[in-house]
């Protein structure tokens, strides 16, 4: 088959195609004058969805029923605690980041402990956990918005060679994720677990270890996203993660990752994240009201999946 046609067999192409079309329609409103602005904004905001989406993707790869609903609460908790700890001092940036990661690890550990100890579906375990984490966030700082250290605020809001710094960070994390999935034993393990847990166990895979690592990874990515988002938007808020519940799931599935597990897809996350931002921007730009905007968003998501779906990508 010719390489161009083969491109259309890849599961991620549809999300990219969709976001390109939406991007094009958006910039055409100003006949291209807004190209750079729109592109930079899209990259910036897609970056956060990419980071949480990657974590969610690893979890979804673990197979049916695996989903982490504690992502928003974890983002909020990590953001609020880190900003409170750093207290606007540049010297505290690193300790802040370390605490952020520690929070991710703790939440991930709690999530998996619940799943394992209570043998409950992850969707319920992480939902329960998210309530507790959200309470912890309220308890630690009662919704006060503390500013980020100036160096961090500058870093997260500026560009390097025209590319937003947060997008560069997201890209680096994506490369790491791709590498983990495609090149390491761990990647094979989680894909195997996602296809059949009993078979994975009988093949000698340390199933619990791999699943725990995955929930840890997801929670750490969520907390890092919370840390970056809090710095980027000038302070942490108690509701700052709420958008990212549906978002983290949507970018994974629109990006072409198999919802039934076992088959994940890093480039698709980028396509889907850009798409999710651009479609709202486009509809805003065309001045459509909230109702119409929601309906269009939904229909576009369904159209993308209709185009991309139906053919199960054969993976090697």
């Amino acid at each position: 088959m010719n390489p161009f046609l083969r491109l259309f067999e890849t599961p991620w192409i549809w999300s990219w195609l969709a976001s390109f079309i939406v991007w094009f329609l958006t910039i055409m409103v100003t006949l291209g004058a807004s190209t750079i602005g729109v592109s930079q904004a899209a990259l910036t905001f897609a970056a956060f969805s990419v980071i949480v989406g990657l974590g969610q993707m690893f979890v979804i790869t673990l197979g049916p029923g695996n989903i982490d609903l504690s992502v928003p609460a974890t983002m909020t908790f990590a953001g609020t605690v880190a900003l409170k700890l750093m207290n606007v001092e540049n010297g505290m940036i690193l300790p802040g980041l370390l605490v952020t990661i520690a929070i991710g690890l703790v939440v991930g550990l709690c999530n998996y402990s619940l799943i394992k100890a209570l043998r409950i579906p992850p969707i319920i375990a992480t939902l329960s956990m998210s309530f507790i984490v959200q309470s912890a966030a309220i308890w630690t700082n009662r919704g006060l918005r503390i500013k980020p250290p100036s160096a961090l605020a500058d870093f997260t809001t500026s560009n390097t060679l025209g590319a937003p710094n947060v997008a560069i960070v997201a890209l680096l994390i994506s490369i790491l994720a791709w590498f983990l999935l495609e090149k390491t034993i761990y990647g094979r393990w989680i894909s195997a677990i996602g296809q059949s847990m009993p078979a994975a166990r009988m093949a000698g895979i340390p199933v619990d270890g791999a699943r725990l690592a995955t929930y840890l990874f997801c929670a750490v990515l969520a907390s890092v996203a919370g840390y970056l988002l809090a710095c980027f938007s000038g302070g942490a808020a108690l509701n700052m993660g709420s958008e990212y519940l549906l978002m983290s799931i949507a970018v994974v599935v629109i990006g072409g990752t198999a919802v039934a597990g076992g088959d994940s897809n890093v480039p698709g996350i980028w396509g889907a994240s850009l798409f999710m931002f651009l479609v709202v921007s486009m509809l805003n730009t065309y001045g459509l009201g909230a109702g119409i905007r929601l309906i269009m968003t939904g229909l576009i998501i369904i159209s993308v999946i209709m185009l991309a779906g139906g053919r199960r990508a054969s993976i090697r």
Partner: protein
Amino acid sequence: MDGIQKAVIAVDGAKVSFGAVKALDGVTLRVMPGECVGLVGHNGAGKSTIVSVINGGLTPQAGSVASDDERLERYGINAARARGVRCVFQELSLCPNLSIVENTRIMHRDLGGFGWRTRAQKIIEQSLDTVFPGHSIGSSRAVGDLSIAERQMVEIAMAFSDAGIAPRLVILDEPTSSLDASLARQMLDHVRRFVAAGGSVIFISHILHEILETSDRIIVMKDGRVVAERPAHGFDHHGLVEAMGTVAKEGTGQRLSREQAAAPPILSHQAEGLSFKAHEGEIIGLAGLAGHGQTELLLALHAAQSGNWRPERDPLVTFVAGDRRLNGVFELWSILRNFSIASLGDLSRRGLILAKEEETKGADWKRRIEIRTPDLHNRILSLSGGNQQKVLFARALATRAPIVLMDDPMRGVDVGTKQEVYKIIREEAARGRTFVWYSTEMDEVRLCDRVYVFREGRIMDELAADAVNETNIITASFSGVPA
């Protein structure tokens, strides 16, 4: 048409290809009322495919299907069922979440209406009682709660059951693979009764003596074609194997008994009944009636030796699954990935997979046990059942684990392949590998150095060396008196 009788089903020149694979290359086959047709062939010969054509699940790209001399243009599942064609598929195909009665409802479309439960119950219980007299399967139990043998019994009974349209042609695709000898006997007896009453049966099995003694006529398939077709008495075991084109090196039978017991055991387990021990280089058989605790012992041995939290650097045990859908294959993956998953530790450095070494090792094993595929990057599901099973074998043997646990792994593997695998097992054992082998086939049990016989979850007896023979095993599995 030469006789007075009309063929129940006549397939003429059926051709089916899946991409480049010619699964059927012009197969002509007819089944007359009152006969049992045995269908044999190596793995991937096209047996299951012709079954799909006959039961209407697959429309051949060329050729025709006729029934009672009437050429059927729009032949499909419902047309087949209406003509009394029933099928027991190679893989289990009931709904595990439903009760036996509810499964009966699903299988018989026109059973509906008020009070269907009572009717369905009567139908299936009657059939179970007829095919497997003395069975103890309650029809309100969920299929998922049944043992694998019980499920197969229910499927067979389901195919022979009558809910308005009487079964005329029952296709049995490896129906005895999970049944022990006595249950298989009951089924074969029923097949004879059914045929004697004018019914027709297509019987597919890799257990050749079953075919030889049960069929009236035997059809041998090879690479999508019928290569021989004769009355059953025209074949003997050897002739059949020759016709299939597999060079069956007759097993050397019993191994020379060696001085293993002197060495310290490398694996031991206190199960109920006698305690289990394994020594280096031994082939240990787990025998007894199907589903009496053999698989459980294997799972327990595996669980005790493998870590769920951290990867084992030098795993002591590896496992060959029997129920490959459940705990064998990874369906989304290629053959190569399915093969290498258990030995990734050796195929990687610091967690990074060495792709070249993976390919080399895969190619090596493909050659060694002859996995029939043009390319190891094809999906595992493109292989026939038997070839999938070979991949699982290769997976386990390619590890460094000194102990191989095998859960009735030869289900659906053809005779030629079996002989090859037996040879490999013997070689590996000679090199010091230990095999713990659960098998439902007596021929395989006889290959073992030592055999534990199970009954009702306990080890009842231990047989060694010359004592490993059919009489002793059967005596132990039924009498249940520990030695």
